[in-house]
C-alpha cells in the first residue's frame, strides 16, 4: 500500500513539473488567443469554414512577423453548438490556458452564454458571427462585435423592397432559435414601418421533415413575399416543398443563415434558383483583399467560402492588429486597444462604437444576393452589384413545370 502511495505521489509530481514546464516554455514565444467555434454537431459546417479562415489568416500573420516578433497562437475549441459546452470550454481557455483574449462565437445562443462568462472574468471577447442583438445590448463592456446585429441583417433587403418589389403583404417563417427569432422580429418591425402587412409570423422547430402544413397555410394567405430565417437544411427543404406545392409569391427572401451557402443550391436544386437572400459579404465587394481572400481560400482548401469565412478571416486580422497595438497583454490594455481599433479588412472598415442600444458594435453594411443559374450573384445595392436583379420571376417556368 505504502509503495503504491509513494509511486502515486512521484507520478503526480512528475506530471505537474512537466505541465508547468511546458506551459511556461510555450508562453515565452507566443501570444495565446482562444477561439470558440462549433466544430462538431449540427453547425459544424459553418464552424469549419470559420476555422479554416482563421488558420489561413494566422499563417499569413505569423509569416509576416507575428505580433511584434512573437508568434500568434490560436487555441481553437469546439463548443459543439451547445451553450453549456461553450461555457465550459471558455472557462477552460481562461483559467487553464490563460489566453489573453477570446475570438470566434458562431451561434447566437452559444455566443450569448460565452459572452456572459467573458464579462464576469473581464476577458476581452471579439465576436465575429453570433448576431442576436442582446449580445451587445446587455451592457457588457468586455464584448466587442465585428458583424452587424441580427436586427440589421435585413437593412439592404428593406431598401430593395422599397425600390423594386413594393410588396403589400408578407409571411415570415423562422426557426425557433435566438438568431431566428430576433431576425424575424426585426423584419416584422421593418414591415410595420414600411406599411407592409404581416399576414403570418411563425416559428418552427429546426430539423422538421414536413413543412407542407405551414406552406399550405401560406398559400391560402397568398402573400407578396415570403421571408425565411433558416439554416441550411431547413432552407433547402422549405424551398423544395414550396416548389412542390406551386407556392408562387412575388419573391422568396432568405434572411441570411443557410440561403447563401453552396450546399443550398446543391440540395434544393431547381427550387433554389432566383431566390434572394440578405448577406453580409461577397467576394466582389470593393474591399482591399476581399477577392484575394476568396481566391486563396479556394486554392488552398479546394472548396467554396462565404461571408462567415470572411468574418473569421477579418476577425483574425483585427485580433493581430489589437495585440500589436496593446501596451501589454493585460486585459485592460487589450480592451483599450480594441476600443481604438480602426482597421480596413476584407470585411470592410472595423471600428467599434456605441450606437442605438448597442455597445462596442462595429457598423457594417449588408447586401442582397440572388441565385442566378446556380451562381450566387450580388444584386443590391446597385453600385456593388455583379448582375442585374432578376425580377419579376416566373416561378413555374424557373422550376421547370
Amino acid at each position, binding site marked *: 500500500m505504502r509503495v503504491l502511495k509513494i509511486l502515486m505521489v512521484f507520478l503526480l509530481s512528475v506530471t505537474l513539473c512537466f505541465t508547468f514546464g511546458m506551459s511556461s516554455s510555450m508562453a515565452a514565444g507566443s501570444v495565446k488567443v482562444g477561439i470558440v467555434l462549433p466544430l*462538431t*454537431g*449540427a453547425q*459544424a*459546417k459553418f464552424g469549419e469554414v470559420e476555422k479554416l479562415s482563421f488558420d489561413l489568416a494566422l499563417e499569413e500573420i505569423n509569416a509576416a512577423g507575428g505580433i511584434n516578433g512573437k508568434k500568434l497562437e490560436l487555441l481553437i475549441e469546439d463548443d459543439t453548438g451547445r451553450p453549456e459546452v461553450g461555457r465550459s470550454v471558455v472557462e477552460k481557455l481562461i483559467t487553464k490556458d490563460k489566453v489573453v483574449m477570446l475570438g470566434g462565437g458562431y451561434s447566437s445562443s452559444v455566443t450569448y452564454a460565452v459572452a456572459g462568462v467573458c464579462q464576469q472574468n473581464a476577458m476581452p471577447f471579439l465576436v465575429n458571427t453570433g448576431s442576436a442583438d442582446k449580445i451587445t445590448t446587455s451592457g457588457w463592456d468586455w464584448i466587442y462585435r465585428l458583424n452587424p446585429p441580427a436586427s440589421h441583417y435585413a437593412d439592404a433587403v428593406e431598401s430593395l423592397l422599397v425600390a423594386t418589389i413594393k410588396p403589400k403583404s408578407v409571411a415570415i*417563417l423562422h426557426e*425557433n432559435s435566438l438568431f431566428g427569432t430576433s431576425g424575424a422580429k426585426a423584419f416584422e418591425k421593418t414591415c410595420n414601418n414600411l406599411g407592409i402587412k404581416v399576414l403570418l409570423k*411563425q*416559428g*418552427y*422547430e429546426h*430539423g*422538421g*421533415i*414536413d*413543412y*407542407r*402544413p*405551414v406552406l*399550405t*397555410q401560406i398559400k*391560402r394567405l397568398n402573400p407578396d413575399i415570403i421571408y425565411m430565417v433558416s439554416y*441550411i*437544411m431547413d432552407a*433547402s*427543404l422549405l424551398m*423544395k*416543398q414550396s*416548389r*412542390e*406545392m*406551386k407556392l408562387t409569391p412575388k419573391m422568396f427572401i432568405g434572411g441570411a443563415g443557410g440561403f447563401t451557402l453552396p*450546399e443550398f443550391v*446543391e*440540395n434544393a*436544386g*431547381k*427550387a433554389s434558383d432566383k431566390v434572394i437572400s440578405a448577406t453580409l459579404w461577397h467576394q466582389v465587394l470593393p474591399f482591399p483583399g476581399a477577392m484575394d481572400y476568396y481566391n486563396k481560400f479556394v486554392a488552398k482548401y479546394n472548396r467554396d467560402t462565404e461571408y462567415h469565412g470572411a468574418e473569421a478571416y477579418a476577425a483574425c486580422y483585427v485580433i493581430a492588429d489589437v495585440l500589436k497595438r496593446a501596451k501589454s497583454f493585460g486585459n485592460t490594455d487589450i480592451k483599450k486597444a480594441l476600443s481604438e481599433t480602426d482597421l480596413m479588412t476584407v470585411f470592410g472598415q472595423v471600428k467599434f462604437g456605441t450606437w442605438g442600444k448597442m455597445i462596442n458594435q462595429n457598423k457594417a453594411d449588408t447586401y442582397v444576393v440572388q441565385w442566378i443559374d446556380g451562381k450566387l450573384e450580388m444584386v443590391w445595392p446597385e453600385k456593388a452589384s455583379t448582375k442585374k436583379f432578376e425580377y419579376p420571376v416566373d416561378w413555374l417556368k424557373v422550376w421547370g413545370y
Partner: protein
Amino acid sequence: MDVLIQTLVAGVLIGGIYCLIGIGMSLIMGVMGIINLAHGQLMMVAMYITFVLSSYMHVDPYFSLIVAMPALFLLGCFLQKYLLNPLMKIDSILPENQVLMTVGIGMVLAEICRFIFTSDYKTVQTSYGGEAFFIGNISFNLPMCIAFIFAIVITLALFWFLAKTDTGRSIRATAQDKEAATLMGVNSTRITIITFGLGSALVASAGSLLIPIFYLFPDIGGPFTLKAFVICILGGLGSTVGAIFGGLTLGIAESLGATYVGMGYKEMVGFVIFVIALVFLPGGLVGIKRLIKS
C-alpha cells in the same frame, strides 16, 4: 377545406413512415419487454448504408432496401446475441440494465458514424426527389407516396410472417407468455435474437425510405427514438397493430398541430398526446378495443 385535406394528406403520408419506425420498436418491446432506446440510431445506420450505396455506387435508395434491411437484421441479431442476452442471463442484474445497454449502443453507433462521416449534413439527390403530382389542389409528394406504399407492403409482409410461419408463431407465442412458450419447446433465446434483428430491419426500411425526402447526420437518431417511443405508448406497449394506429395518429396529429396551432408547437402536440395517452389510456389504442370487449 383545401388546407384541411392537404394537412391530412401530409399527416397520413408521414404517418406511414412513423408506422414502420414504431412497429420495429413495438415488436422488440412485446417479445423482450425492454425498450430499445437505440432504435433511432439503428435507423441512422441504415440511412448511412443507403447514402453510401447511392452516392458511391449509384444504387437507387429504394433498391438499397435490399441491402440495408438484411444488414441491419444482422446487426440487430449481433447486438441481441452478444450484448443484450448476456445481461438477461445474470439474475443479479436488474432488467433495466438492458435498457441502459441500448442507450449505450445508440451512443456508440452515433459516434462511430460521426467518426467515419463527420458531422456534416448529407443528402442523396435523386431525379424524383422534388417531384409532386396534384389531385385537384392537393399536392402529393412522389417519394412520400412511394414510401407510404412501401410501408404498407412491408407491414403486410410482416403480418404474413407473424401469422403464417413457424418462426412468426413462435415470436407471437413468446410475446404472449415467455414461460409457457419455452415449456412448449420454443427456443426463446433464438426468438429474441430474431426479433431484435427483425425490429432493426423494419426501422432500417424506414431509414432508406426517408433518404429521398430528408437529410442525415449522426445525431438524427435521437428524435426518431423518441417518436418511436411515443408511437409505442400510443399504440399500447408491444402491440404491432397498435403501432400502426399509433404511427398514423402521431403523423396526423403533428400535421394538424402544425397547421392549426403553430409549426413551432408541432413536437409539443406529439408529447401532449403522449401524456394524455398515459393518463387516460394506459393500455394505448389497443386498450380501447379491450375496453369495448369487456
